[in-house]
C-alpha cells in the first residue's frame, strides 16, 4: 500500500465521525433516489411479468347479442390480433355462509387470462367448480364441498347454467383481479363479492357472452407504459370497427329473420284457406255420393214395392209359378242393388271420417306453425340491437390504478430526492471545507516542501471520493432492496400481486452514486482551491480567528438591553460563523421542508377523494341505467328511486384543446336548475358558486389547465363514435377526480344534434339503502354505486400512498439527524479551544452544553421557520409533479402537519444535542493551553 493510501486510511481512522457522516449523507441521498425509483420499477416488473405470464387480455369485448364462431373469426382477422378467446361470464348468487352473495362465474380460460391453481385441481365436468380463496374461507368450505348457485329468476338461471350445485375441486387465483375489489354487477346491491370458475360445459346459453383479445405486439411491449396505453386505444378503435361490421351483419340477419316471419305468416294464411277449400270440395263430392246413394235406395225401395205388388198380384192371379222366373230375377236384381247400395254407403261414411280427420290435422299443423311464428317474432322483438363494447385494461379500475400508482411513485422518486441531494451537498460542503481548513497548516507544509497543489488535493479528493462512493453505493443497494420491501408491502394490502423481482436499477443507481460522488468531490475541490490560494508561509500560520462583531440586533437597544448575558452571547455567536450558520439553517430548513412536504402529501393525496365526494359529487348514490327514451321506462324507475334524484346523461368523450387532450365525461342534467344540488359547482380558489347556462359548457379546472382552454374558449369534444364537436366554455369549476364537462340538455341537443337521453340517475337517500334491492330489479338499472363505498375503496388506495410518505418522513428524519449531527460536530470542533476555555473557567457540564445548545436551538428554530415557509413551496411543487392526469390534488396541509414537522425537527435537534453532550463533556481542557490551531 502506498504511503498516500495509508495516509488517507489513517485520516479516515482518526476522523471516523466525519467520514461516516459524509458517507451516510451520500447514502441517504442515493437511497432515496434509487429506492423510490426501484420500487416503481419493481412494481412495474411484477405486474408486467404477471400479465405476460398469465397471458392477460389486451381488450375485452362484450356484445349485446353474444358471440358465435363467426364473431371469433372476424376478431381473429382483425389487424394485430394475436389470440382470441370467446368465453362465458355469468353472474349469480352463491350461497356463502347461508347468505346470497353476488358472484361472477367464468368459464375456464382457454389460452388467455390463465388462472393459477393454488390448491386442488380445475373442474373437469359441468358439475364442478374452482373458487377463489376468499369464497372458500368466508363460506367455511373445503375442497369436495358443494356450493349452490341461484338467481331470483330461476328461468334466467336455467337458461344459462345446467346445474345449481357445484362440487369445489380447487382454489384458483385469477389474473383479472389484482386488487381485493371485485367490481360491480347488476345483481343485489350492485357490488360483486366473489368469483369462481366453471367447466365450459356447465353453460347452456348457446352463445359466448364475452370475448378476450390479445394483440400481437403486446407480448414484447412493457405492459405498464404510456406506449402500451396509447397502443391499446388504437387496438380498441380497430376492434370497434370489426364490431361495427359484425353488428351490421347481425342486423342484416335480423332483418332477414323478420322477413321470414312475414313470409311465414303469409304462408300460414294461404294454408288456412287452402285447407278450407280442399275440405269443402271433398265434402261436396261426398254429398253428391250421398245423394246418389239416397236415390239408389229410393229406387231400390220402389223396385221392392213394385216386386211386392207383382208378387201379390201374381199370387192372387195364380200366375206365380208362371211368373216365378221373372220374380226371382227381379228379386236377385233388388238384392244386388241393396248390396251395392250398402257398399256405397260404407264407402261414403269412410270418406266422411277421413275428411274430418284430415281437416283436424291440417288445422292443428297450421296452429302450430302460427305459434312458432309468434314465438319467433316475440324473440326477435326482444333481441337487442347487436352492438360491441370494447374495453382496454384502462377500463379495468385496478389495472389502471396500479399503473397510476407506479407513475406517482416514479414522480415522487424524481422530485423528492432532489431536495435530499441539495441538503446533502450543502452539508458535505460544510464538512469538507472544515476538513480542509483543519489541515490548513499541513497543506501549507506540503506546499512549502514543494508538493504541487494537485498532489496535495488528491488526498482530500480521494477521501471525499471514498466517502461519497462507499456511502452512495451502499445507499443505492440498500435503497433498492429496503424501499421496495417496505413500499410493496404496503401495496400488498391493496394489490394481489406476486412478489416483484428486485433488480438494482443499475442506470439510476450509477447516476445517483456518480452525482453523489461528483457533488462531494466538486465541493471538496472548490474549498480546497479556495484554501490553497495563499502562499505556504501564510498557510502555515494559523488562520486568525474571526474577529468579534456586533450584530444588527444590538442596534435595537430596547431589545438588546433586555436580553440576558447568554442570550446576547448566543445571538452574536450564531451570526459569527456566517457560512456555518447559513448551512445549518439551510440543512434544518431543508429537513423541516421535507417533513412538511411529506406530511402535506399525505394530507393532500388522502384529501382528494374526500373533497371530491364532499364538495363535488355530493350525492349519496348513483344508478347506471339503460338509455331512458320513453315515459314507461321512467315510471317504474321513479317509483323505486328515493325522492331526491336527478336524471343525467353521462357520456365518455375525449376533450382536446391547444395544449393537450384528456379523457373526460360530459354530464347533462335533465334539469339544469337542480344540478348544483347534486354536483358542487364552484370556482376554484374562490369557491364562488358557478351556474350552468344555456349555450355553453362548464369544464373542470384540471381539464382547463391540461387542454389550455379557458373561459370563453372552445373545447373540442370527440365522442365514442368518432365525431368531433366544439363547445364554448362559459366557466371553470373546481374538481379533484376525473374531468367533467357540464352542459344543459339544450346545449347538448344543439351541439350533438340529438336529445340527451338520461343514462344515469344520481340521488340522495331518503331512508337508508332499503330502496336498492327494488331499484336493482328494475330492468333499466344496470348498476348502483354508493359514494361511501367508493370513498372507502379509494381510502384503501391512499393508505398505501401513506406508507410512501411515511418512508419519506423517516428519510427526512434520518437526514435531519445526520445534518444536525454533522453541523454540530463541526461547530464543536471549530470552537474546541473556546469551549475548553469555558470549561477551565469552571462551567459545569450542563452549563457548557447549554452554551452550545442555545445556539443550536436558535438556529434550529430559525431553520424550522424557514423550512416551513420553504416547505409550503416545495410541497406545491411536489404535489403538482406527482399529480396524475386523472386527479387534481387539493393543495392542503393540515395544521397538524405543521405541528408534526416542527415537533419532529425539534425532536431531532434535541436528540442530536443529547448525543453531542458526550462529545462536549469529553473536551480536553488542555486544548485551551494550545495556541490557536
Amino acid at each position, binding site marked *: 500500500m502506498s504511503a498516500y493510501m495509508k495516509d488517507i486510511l489513517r485520516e479516515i481512522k482518526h476522523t471516523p465521525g466525519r467520514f461516516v457522516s459524509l458517507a451516510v449523507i451520500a447514502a441517504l441521498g442515493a437511497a432515496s433516489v434509487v429506492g423510490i425509483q426501484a420500487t416503481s420499477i419493481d412494481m412495474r416488473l411484477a405486474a408486467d411479468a404477471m400479465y405476460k405470464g398469465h397471458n392477460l387480455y389486451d381488450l375485452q369485448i362484450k356484445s349485446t347479442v353474444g358471440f358465435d364462431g363467426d364473431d371469433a373469426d372476424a376478431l381473429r382477422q382483425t389487424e394485430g390480433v394475436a389470440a382470441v378467446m370467446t368465453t362465458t361470464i355469468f353472474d349469480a348468487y352463491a350461497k356463502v355462509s347461508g347468505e346470497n352473495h353476488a358472484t361472477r362465474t367464468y368459464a375456464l380460460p382457454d389460452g388467455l387470462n390463465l388462472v393459477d391453481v393454488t390448491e386442488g385441481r380445475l373442474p373437469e365436468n359441468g358439475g364442478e367448480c374452482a373458487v377463489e380463496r376468499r369464497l372458500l374461507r368466508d363460506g367455511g368450505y373445503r375442497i369436495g364441498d358443494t356450493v349452490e348457485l341461484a338467481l331470483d329468476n330461476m328461468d334466467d338461471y336455467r337458461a344459462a347454467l345446467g346445474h345449481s350445485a357445484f362440487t369445489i375441486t380447487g382454489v384458483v387465483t385469477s389474473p383479472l383481479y389484482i386488487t381485493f375489489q371485485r367490481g360491480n354487477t347488476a345483481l343485489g346491491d350492485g357490488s360483486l363479492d366473489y368469483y369462481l370458475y366453471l367447466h365450459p360445459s356447465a353453460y347452456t346459453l348457446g352463445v359466448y357472452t364475452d370475448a378476450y383479445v390479445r394483440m400481437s405486439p403486446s407480448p414484447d411491449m412493457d405492459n405498464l407504459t404510456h406506449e402500451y396505453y396509447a397502443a391499446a386505444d388504437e387496438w380498441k378503435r380497430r376492434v370497434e370497427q370489426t364490431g361495427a361490421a359484425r353488428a351490421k351483419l347481425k342486423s342484416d340477419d335480423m332483418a332477414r329473420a323478420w322477413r321470414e316471419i312475414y313470409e311465414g305468416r303469409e304462408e300460414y294464411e294461404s294454408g288456412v284457406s287452402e285447407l278450407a277449400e280442399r275440405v269443402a270440395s271433398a265434402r261436396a263430392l261426398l254429398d253428391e255420393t250421398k245423394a246418389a246413394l239416397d236415390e239408389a235406395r229410393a229406387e231400390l225401395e220402389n223396385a221392392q214395392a213394385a216386386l211386392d205388388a207383382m208378387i201379390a198380384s201374381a199370387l192372387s192371379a195364380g200366375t206365380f209359378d208362371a211368373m216365378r222366373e221373372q220374380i226371382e230375377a227381379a228379386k236377385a236384381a233388388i238384392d244386388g242393388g241393396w248390396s251395392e247400395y250398402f257398399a256405397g254407403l260404407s264407402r261414403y261414411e269412410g270418406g266422411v271420417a277421413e275428411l274430418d280427420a284430415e281437416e283436424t290435422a291440417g288445422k292443428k299443423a297450421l296452429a302450430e306453425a302460427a305459434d312458432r311464428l309468434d314465438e319467433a317474432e316475440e324473440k326477435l322483438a326482444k333481441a337487442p340491437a347487436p352492438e360491441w363494447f370494447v374495453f382496454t385494461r384502462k377500463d379495468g379500475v385496478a389495472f389502471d390504478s396500479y399503473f397510476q400508482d407506479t407513475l406517482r411513485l416514479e414522480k415522487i422518486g424524481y422530485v423528492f430526492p432532489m431536495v435530499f441531494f441539495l441538503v446533502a451537498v450543502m452539508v458535505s460542503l460544510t464538512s469538507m471545507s472544515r476538513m480542509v481548513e483543519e489541515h490548513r497548516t499541513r497543506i501549507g507544509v506540503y506546499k512549502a516542501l514543494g508538493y504541487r497543489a494537485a498532489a496535495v488535493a488528491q488526498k482530500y479528493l480521494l477521501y471525499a471520493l471514498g466517502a461519497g462512493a462507499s456511502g452512495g453505493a451502499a445507499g443505492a443497494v440498500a435503497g433498492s432492496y429496503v424501499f421496495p420491501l417496505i413500499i410493496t408491502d404496503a401495496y400488498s394490502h391493496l394489490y394481489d400481486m406476486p412478489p416483484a423481482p428486485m433488480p438494482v436499477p443499475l442506470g439510476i443507481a450509477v447516476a445517483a452514486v456518480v452525482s453523489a460522488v461528483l457533488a462531494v468531490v466538486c465541493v471538496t475541490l472548490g474549498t480546497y482551491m479556495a484554501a490553497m490560494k495563499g502562499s505556504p508561509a501564510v498557510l502555515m500560520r494559523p488562520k*486568525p*480567528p*474571526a*474577529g*468579534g*462583531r456586533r450584530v444588527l440586533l444590538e442596534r435595537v437597544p430596547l431589545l438588546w438591553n433586555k436580553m440576558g*448575558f*447568554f442570550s*446576547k*452571547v448566543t445571538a*452574536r*455567536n450564531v451570526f*459569527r460563523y456566517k457560512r456555518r450558520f447559513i448551512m445549518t439553517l439551510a440543512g434544518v430548513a431543508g429537513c423541516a421542508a421535507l417533513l412538511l412536504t411529506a406530511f402535506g402529501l399525505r394530507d393532500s393525496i388522502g384529501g382528494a377523494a374526500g373533497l371530491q365526494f364532499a364538495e363535488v359529487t355530493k350525492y349519496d348514490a348513483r344508478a347506471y341505467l339503460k338509455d331512458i327514451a320513453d315515459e314507461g321506462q321512467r315510471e317504474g324507475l321513479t317509483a323505486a328511486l328515493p325522492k331526491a334524484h336527478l336524471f343525467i346523461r353521462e357520456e365518455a368523450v375525449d376533450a382536446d384543446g391547444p395544449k393537450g387532450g384528456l379523457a373526460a365525461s360530459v354530464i347533462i342534467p335533465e334539469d339544469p336548475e337542480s344540478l348544483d344540488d347534486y354536483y358542487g359547482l364552484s370556482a376554484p380558489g374562490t369557491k364562488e358558486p358557478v351556474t350552468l347556462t344555456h349555450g355553453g359548457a362548464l369544464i373542470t379546472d384540471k381539464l382547463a389547465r391540461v387542454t389550455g382552454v379557458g373561459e370563453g374558449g372552445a373545447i373540442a369534444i370527440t365522442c365514442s363514435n368518432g365525431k368531433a364537436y366544439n363547445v364554448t366554455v362559459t366557466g371553470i369549476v373546481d374538481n379533484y377526480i376525473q374531468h367533467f364537462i357540464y352542459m344543459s340538455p339544450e346545449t347538448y341537443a344543439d351541439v350533438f344534434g340529438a336529445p340527451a337521453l338520461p343514462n344515469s340517475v344520481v340521488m340522495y337517500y331518503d331512508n337508508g339503502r332499503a330502496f336498492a334491492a327494488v331499484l336493482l330489479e328494475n330492468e333499466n338499472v344496470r348498476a348502483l354505486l354508493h359514494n361511501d363505498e367508493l370513498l372507502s375503496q379509494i381510502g384503501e388506495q391512499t393508505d398505501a400512498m401513506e406508507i410512501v410518505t411515511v418512508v419519506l418522513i423517516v428519510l427526512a428524519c434520518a437526514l435531519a439527524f445526520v445534518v444536525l449531527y454533522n453541523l454540530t460536530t463541526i461547530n464543536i470542533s471549530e470552537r474546541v*479551544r*473556546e469551549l475548553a*476555555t*469555558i*470549561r*477551565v*473557567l*469552571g*462551567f*459545569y*457540564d450542563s*452549563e457548557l452544553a447549554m452554551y452550545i445548545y442555545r445556539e443550536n436551538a436558535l438556529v434550529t428554530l430559525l431553520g424550522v421557520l424557514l423550512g416551513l415557509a420553504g416547505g409550503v413551496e416545495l410541497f406545491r411543487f411536489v404535489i403538482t409533479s406527482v399529480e396524475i392526469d386523472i386527479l387534481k390534488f387539493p393543495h392542503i396541509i393540515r395544521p397538524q402537519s405543521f405541528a408534526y414537522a416542527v415537533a419532529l425537527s425539534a425532536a431531532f435537534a434535541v436528540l442530536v444535542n443529547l448525543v453531542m453532550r458526550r462529545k462536549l463533556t469529553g473536551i480536553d*481542557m*488542555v486544548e*485551551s*493551553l*494550545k*495556541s*490557536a490551531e
Partner: protein
Amino acid sequence: MGEDYVIFRDVVREYRTGSVAVRAADGITFSLRGGELSIIVGPSGAGKTTVLNILGGMDGVTSGTVTVDGREISSLSRRDICSYRRDDVGFVFQFYNLIPNLTALENVELALQIRKEALDPRAVLEDVGLGHRMHNFPAQLSGGEQQRVAIARALAKNPKLLLCDEPTGALDYETGKSIFRLLQDTCREKGVTVVVITHNGAVTPIAHRVVKIKSGKVERVTDNPCPKPVAEIEW
C-alpha cells in the same frame, strides 16, 4: 493564609499511549504559601505544565495528593473539581483565550455568570488599566491588552488562586514586563495567591518562592525574603 496553602505531595502523573507510559510528573513534592507570588520554573517538557494542569483542576494525578487551602483536590469528584475551578481558581492562559465574539467587558462578565462572589467587572477592568477599551473586541486589542483582559477575567471571579501559564510567552519584552507588574501588584494589593509558570528563569527574583522543576521532579525550592519589584529586573 500562610504556610502550606498549596501542597503537592509525591505527585505522579503518567500518560499512557498504547503500551508506552510517559511520566510527566515523577514524585513532585512542594508547597506554596498563601497570599504570595510563586513561580514554577523549568525548561520545556520538564513537567511544569502538568503541575499547572493538576493545580488548575484540569487534570488528575496518578498517585500522590494535592491540597489547596486544606482541601485535597486530587480526590474530588468531577462536579466538585469543576466547582473548584469555578470558585477557587482564576486562570490566565499563554494565548489569552478570550472569547473572540465577546467584548473585553463581556469577557469579564462571562466569569460573573458562574460565580456569585464575583467582583464588578468594570472596576476590575479599570484596575488592569483597560477602562477605556471595555467595549472593544479581542481582535481590536493588542496582545498585552488582551492578556490584561484575561487577567481581569480571572480576577473578577475573586479566586483564591490565580494561575498563570506563561502569561508573557506571546508578548514582547515591555508588555511582558507590564503584565508581570500587574500580577505582582495584584498579589501585593489584593492578597491573591498568584502562581506563575514560566520557562524564563530571569523573572524568578520577583517571586516569594521559586520552584524549579526538571525532568518531572522538583530540583530546588528557593525563597526570596524580599522579592524585587518588576521594574528592577531585566531579561
